[in-house]
Structure formats: structure tokens, C-alpha cells
């Protein structure tokens, strides 16, 4: 347990020191929220207040930015630089390392959600959500699933140079298609078909159901099940394909 806290402190320091991570995974969702919110936050989207609708979408975007994209890129870089291999020679147990790493991303995401909610309240008058326990559970499920998928994609990427490109090529279109930035209702059929497969779609639906309709999480069986299934796929790939050593060139 002491090792876990020690490593968590180290990971949080590393997170703060990385400007790229801080910007792309942390600040960018907030900047987009401010920009999009200013553009059509006062419109009505799918029958809801635009800013509130957007805030839920931005929480989804934040989740994949931090837990999926940020984690995957960091893991590939550490693996290819040989840092993970180095850690294997120390007495730090792998489970302590992995849980501390994931917890640091969980903390980053929690701060991100708080920042988005505060921004929404201050700039656009979005109400603080009522169903806090359901929302927290939904966010936890989402962040754990996307972390699993992030580790899985890191296991499939072979070089540090390709990491950012590959991760961006997946998560940016996914954010768009799953309706982080707009309502997916106006999308053509092909995109809506794709959206029906993507995990982010179900996470955003889940968050919107809780934040916009005041639903509790246990009424959202389909959304929870699909999201958890994706998380499970991530765990399976991660366990099978993840390696600690660099792919020697």
C-alpha cells in the first residue's frame, strides 16, 4: 500500500510536468467547451438546453482524452523508451504500478469534470447535476473502460513515433461521431451506424440520461452493458498483448 501511494505521488508529479498531456487531454476539452458553448450554448438541442447538452458531451470527450488517448500515448512512450523494462527490475510490483498509474488518470479526469461543471455553471448557467451518485458511478465505469481500451491500444501500437498519430486517428473521429460536440441526430445514416457501435456513444448517452433527464444509473441497462462490454474487450486485449519491453528496432 505504501508503494502504491509513493508511486501515485510520482505519477501525479509526472502528469503535472507534462505540458503536452496537460494541454491536449486536460485544457483542450475546456477550451472546446467554452468555444462551442459560446457558439450555440443558448440554442435548444434535441429538446434540451444547448449548454447542458454540450457539457455532458464534453465530459465524454474529456474521458477519452484523459483515460484513452493520454494513457495510451504515455504507455507507448514509456515502453519504447525502456522505462517499463527498467521498472520491472525494481521490487515495485506490477499491480501497484498499474493501479497507481490508472489512479493518477482517474484523479486527472475527476478534476477535469469538476472544472467543466464549474465552467458550465459560471459561463452558461448550467445547473449542477442532481443525481450525483449515479453520475459518479457512470463516470467511474466510463473512465475504467476507456483506461482498459487505452492500455489495449497501447499494446497494439509498435513505435513511439506512431503513437500520437494512431491514437489521434482513433479518438478524434470517435469523439465527433459519438456526438461529443453536437447532436448525432443530424448525422447521415452511415455515421449513425458507426456511432451505434462505438463505446463513447453509450457513455455520452448514459451521462446525458443522468444529467439531462435526471435518470438513475440502474435504469440505463443497455448503455451500462455496452460500455462495460467494451471495457472487457479492452481488458482482454490488454492482458494478452501488453508487453513491458520495447520493440527493438
Amino acid at each position: 500500500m505504501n508503494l502504491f501511494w509513493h508511486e501515485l505521488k510520482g505519477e501525479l508529479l509526472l502528469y503535472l510536468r507534462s505540458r503536452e498531456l496537460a494541454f491536449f487531454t486536460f485544457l483542450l476539452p475546456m477550451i472546446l467547451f467554452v468555444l462551442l458553448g459560446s457558439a450555440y450554448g443558448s440554442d435548444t438541442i434535441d429538446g434540451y438546453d444547448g449548454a447542458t447538452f454540450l457539457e455532458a458531451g464534453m465530459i465524454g470527450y474529456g474521458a477519452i482524452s484523459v483515460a484513452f488517448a493520454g494513457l495510451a500515448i504515455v504507455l507507448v512512450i514509456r515502453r519504447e523508451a525502456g522505462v517499463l523494462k527498467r521498472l520491472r527490475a525494481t521490487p515495485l510490483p506490477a499491480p501497484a504500478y498499474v493501479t497507481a498509474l490508472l489512479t493518477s488518470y482517474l484523479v486527472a479526469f475527476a478534476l477535469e469534470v469538476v472544472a467543466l461543471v464549474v465552467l458550465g455553471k459560471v459561463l452558461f448557467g448550467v445547473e449542477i447535476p442532481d443525481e450525483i451518485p449515479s453520475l459518479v458511478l457512470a463516470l467511474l465505469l466510463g473512465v475504467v473502460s476507456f483506461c482498459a481500451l487505452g492500455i489495449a491500444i497501447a499494446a497494439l501500437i509498435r513505435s513511439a513515433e506512431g503513437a500520437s498519430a494512431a491514437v489521434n486517428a482513433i479518438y478524434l473521429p470517435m469523439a465527433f461521431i459519438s456526438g461529443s460536440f453536437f447532436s448525432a441526430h443530424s448525422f447521415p445514416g452511415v455515421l449513425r451506424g458507426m456511432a451505434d457501435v462505438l463505446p463513447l456513444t453509450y457513455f455520452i448517452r448514459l451521462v446525458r440520461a443522468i444529467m439531462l433527464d435526471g435518470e438513475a444509473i440502474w435504469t440505463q441497462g443497455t448503455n451500462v452493458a455496452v460500455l462495460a462490454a467494451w471495457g472487457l474487450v479492452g481488458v482482454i486485449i490488454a492482458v494478452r498483448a501488453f508487453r513491458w519491453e520495447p520493440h527493438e528496432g
Partner: protein
Amino acid sequence: MNAIEVRGLRKSYGALEAVRGLDFEVRSGEVFGLLGPNGAGKTTTVEILEGYRKRDGGEVQVLGTDPAIAGGAWRERIGVVLQSSAMYETLTAAEMLRLFAGYYREPRPVDEVVELVGLREKRDERVRRLSGGQRRRLDLGLALIGDPELIFLDEPTTGFDPRARRQAWETIRGLRGLGKTILLTTHYLDEAEQLADRVAVIAHGQIVASGKPSELTGTAPATEIRYRENGREVVLQTDEPTRVLNDLTGEALAQRREVEGLVVRRPSLEDVYLSLTEESPE
């Protein structure tokens, strides 16, 4: 007491037999050099001893434990410097050491390690601003922070300039003075000659010679005597250097002339090494 015992070690990658039946032992408190050209099987061997790779055959004991099944308690007792220095670029040298110190039950104090590897002026510098040699020293510091009994150094000075190399050698000698056992791999002969108590020369996955550096050179080709005569270089190889020299210089003295450009050279480890590693054992 042996820190490391290796018997009949084998490892293949597909059809390639990287290690083909190695036997050697490293005694506690000694610096043991595994010397050989690139691709000889040095790193494969060391990575099996460090617990990174599984062997295909043979017996291996490192600090009395099979590294393939060793756990955290065993890792408390070893220190590893890999071929490349892998670090968190955004941390300072001292932060990096402090982070790693936390992984061990009884680490050495960070400032003591900073001194030991000669990074006092750079202790609060970010890793990404350190020079290649400074990174390598920090790397060594990370291997020492847990106060291990046994240290693996895989080509610790590759890419160093001569001055940085000398400094690294001094540091490694210092570790020996602390009673640490060191397994060093290198393809630099002078490094093995300077640092190692005993050396095993490895080529094509097999040990082709082993012993003290002085013993190895003792089995070497003859002593070489060179001089110039009438502007031409004369090279003599002899097993009786005393007699040959006496004849040569006696004759010159009698004729009251100087032997020009006289050089007497004992075979170096390099000659032994080249003669041992150049031919394939097939």
C-alpha cells in the same frame, strides 16, 4: 561463495542459437567481465540472469535463486543498468532517484548516491538537460539506490568520450571497494582489463576463454619486438624475449650504434581477444 552460477545455459531465438551452453560463475565481491563482440550473446545472457528472459536449457542461480521465478525480495538485492538509459525526462536527477528509492525497503540516501556517481552539480537539473555521460551516471545511481549486493552493468561506457570513460571506471572501482559484486559486459578490451578481476571471452554464444586478464594474456602469442634497420621495419615474434633482446642490443653495443625505434610489446588482451573471436567455431 558464488553470487552467480551458470551451467549449460542455452537460449535460441527461432533458428538462431544466441547462447550455446555457457558455464561460468561470479564470486561474491568480484568484478566479472563478460567480454565479446556485438551479437556474441552477452546481453541475452545478462538478461536471463536479470530475470527478463526465459532460458531454454541449463541451470542458473543468482544470489541463490533462479531468476526466472524470483520475486520482489530478490529484486531488492540486485541493481540493473541496461544498455539504454530509460528515464522520465521531465523529472530532475534527484526526483528520479527519490522515486526509485521509494521502491526499496532500505535505500541508500539520495544525496549519498548523487555524490557517489558524481552528479552533485546536476542534482536539480531535469533529466532531459543532462548530457549522455551524465544520464549514464544517473542510470548507475538508479541501480545503486536500493543498495544492492549484485550489480549488472550492460556496456556501461558505450558512446562515452575518453574522459567520461575514465570517470565511470573510477566510479565502478569505488563500488568494488564497497564490497559489491559486479557483472560487467563490454566489447572494450581495455575496460575489461582495467576493471575486471576475471574475464570470460564470449563469441558465437560460447565461452572461448576465461581467467584473470593477466592469465589470458599469458597464453597469448609471442612477445613482439620491433625496430628499424636501414629504414626498414623489422618485426620479431619470440617466446624468448630476454635472449633475443640481449643478442640484438649486445650486437648494437659492440658496433657502438643505437637500435632505432626499438619497441618491445607484450601481447595485450586485444591480441588474445582478436585471435579468439575472429574464427567461427563451426
